[in-house]
């Protein structure tokens, strides 16, 4: 039986907003799960229901074999990291880290040892006597991570912990989080809208949209084999290209590829790295924007089938207005249903 299980979990607010529409998720002990999706998709609500900060309108949450759906947050034994740190402003860093331990049976000596250990692990020992507001965001969030871990909870919950930091601090803290999670082996639920964060941190990514789970899988499953068009577009930077196609007699226009699908319209998905410049290729486009990104470039093209993005080596630049021919890797073309966007092949 899984360590954490969400069963048909639902949240409907009094104003009628249906934030989470009956989701199922099973998490194994020690797993790092990232809930990924755009704002308003229900990921934070789900996390807060697991924490006990929001009451589920329907469904069950099981933690370590017990039903915790109706338990208060204090009875669930979880640790949480908030987007805006939520450190106690009037307490020193040391007092903040000690705070969760005040309510345990630990002796004073043991508490001090725990705080010193976690501070050392997070590299904040030199900040212990300071106050939160004197510190930059990155340090505050380190302390917040420590406060959520120091009690050694059963579950570590994080609500966009890196959202307010700039890219340098973000990358640094990502490593800290990953290292701490591995070291403590604590089961983790992490919410973000940043697909790159999800890809690099997660054992499994849970893609959410409009209150439902679109797909749950390892980073490479979600990236290479998306279950629907939403996931295909949301994961990846930039997301998967979509080309409206038409199947007639087992051949799909406009790429001219053989497909095992009945006649009718279809949406084709191709990742930017599976498009290649080829003057003899089946597609043609006009350069809108050539984005140089150092290790590679993204070429944005206007084609008769819509806007496409191609990922290229950094090589020579293209000018806006240049015409480019394209071909696709047939092995990497995915087919989706035009209506609900579900994956066909």
């Amino acid at each position: 039986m899984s360590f954490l299980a969400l069963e048909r979990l639902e949240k409907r607010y009094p104003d009628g907003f249906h934030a989470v529409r009956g989701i199922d998720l099973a998490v194994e002990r020690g797993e790092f799960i990232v809930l990924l999706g755009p704002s308003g998709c229900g990921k934070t609500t789900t996390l807060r229901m697991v924490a006990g900060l929001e009451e589920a309108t329907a469904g069950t949450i099981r933690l370590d074999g017990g039903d915790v759906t109706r338990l208060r947050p204090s009875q669930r034994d979880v640790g949480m990291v908030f987007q805006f740190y939520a450190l106690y402003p009037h307490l020193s860093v040391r007092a903040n880290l000690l705070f969760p331990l005040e309510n345990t049976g630990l002796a004073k000596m043991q508490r001090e040892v725990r705080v010193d250990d976690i501070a050392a692990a997070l590299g904040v020992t030199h900040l212990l006597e300071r106050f939160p507001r004197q510190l930059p965001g990155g340090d505050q969030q380190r302390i917040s991570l420590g406060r959520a871990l120091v009690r050694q909870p059963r579950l570590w919950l994080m609500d966009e912990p890196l959202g307010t930091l700039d890219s340098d601090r973000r990358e640094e803290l990502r490593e800290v989080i990953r290292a701490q999670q591995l070291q403590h082996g604590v089961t983790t639920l992490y919410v973000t809208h940043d697909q790159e964060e999800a890809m690099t941190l997660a054992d499994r990514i849970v893609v959410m949209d409009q209150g439902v789970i679109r797909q749950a899988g390892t980073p490479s499953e979600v990236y290479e084999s998306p279950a629907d068009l939403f996931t295909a577009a949301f994961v990846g930077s930039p997301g998967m290209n979509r080309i409206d196609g038409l199947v007639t007699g087992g051949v799909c226009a406009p790429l001219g590829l053989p497909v095992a699908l009945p006649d009718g319209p279809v949406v084709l998905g191709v990742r930017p790295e599976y498009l290649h410049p080829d003057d003899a290729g089946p597609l043609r486009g006009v350069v809108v924007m050539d984005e140089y990104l150092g290790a590679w470039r993204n070429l944005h093209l206007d084609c008769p089938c819509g806007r496409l993005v191609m990922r290229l080596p950094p090589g020579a630049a293209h000018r806006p207005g240049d015409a480019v021919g394209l071909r696709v890797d047939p092995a990497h073309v995915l087919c989706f249903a035009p209506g609900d966007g579900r994956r066909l092949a």
Partner: protein
Amino acid sequence: MAGMPGTGGTRMLAWSFVGPALLLLIAFNLFPLAWNIVLSFTNADLSGGTWEWVGGRNYATIFSDKSFAAKYGAALRTTALFTVLAVAIELALGFALALALRRDFRGKTPLLAVLLLPMMLSPAVMGLFWNLILEGTYGPLNQILGLAGLSQPAWRTEFKLLCLLLVDVWMWTPFMMLIALAGLNAIPAQLYEAAEIDRTPAWRVFARITLPLCAPLLGLAVLLRATDALKQFDLVMAITGPNDQATQTVSALLYQTTFANQKVGLGAAYAIVVLVGVIAVATLFTRYLDWMAARQGREG
């Protein structure tokens, strides 16, 4: 906006905003203060006539004349007792009310409006109004006590200071509540969520989060109320009159000296002594508030 390239036009505009307030300040604050200082070195009295410079004699009287020093000491003790009791009761009641009214519930807005009413009324009117309520034989309070078969004390002659306290508390508890509510609402909900997740019992949340985070604002409210209570005058006038031993506050004594006994020069000197005392107390208090804020590492 410091360092902004200003032009003549914007400077004129700035003065036109600040000017009127500045004039009022000079006319009604600075000039009377200066005039009061001048008067404190004279033997001016209300009968008109001529004044003479008496140097520091008024101040010498205040600090050495036995009979005056006794009155002055009594007034100080009365004022201090009144201030401490009134502010403490208002703080406790106001904070308790704020905690009770913190959450949203149906009918909160009208309830708040009713609770704030006493604060909106004139103190002198309130004093007269309470005089009626507390009146020994016909007052509604004693009527009710009588109907309930309880004793009917002569409030206004036997418990004068208590009457004063009662009215002041009734008037100013809403103010404390309002400030306390603002303080409570400024505490981010996430701090409570974090504490709840960390299994903190309710009393500890109150002692470790609510109280310390409200304290600076409550301190400010106490400062404002204390400076106000220290100059208590209108309720004294309305309830017992300025010359009643039991309730003669410093302000009442000042009035008595200056206007009833017509010793303007002595009254002015006494006012200056009181002012210096009040400034000293207020300075200590703001220092304390600054220290509180610095301890929390607030910027600015």
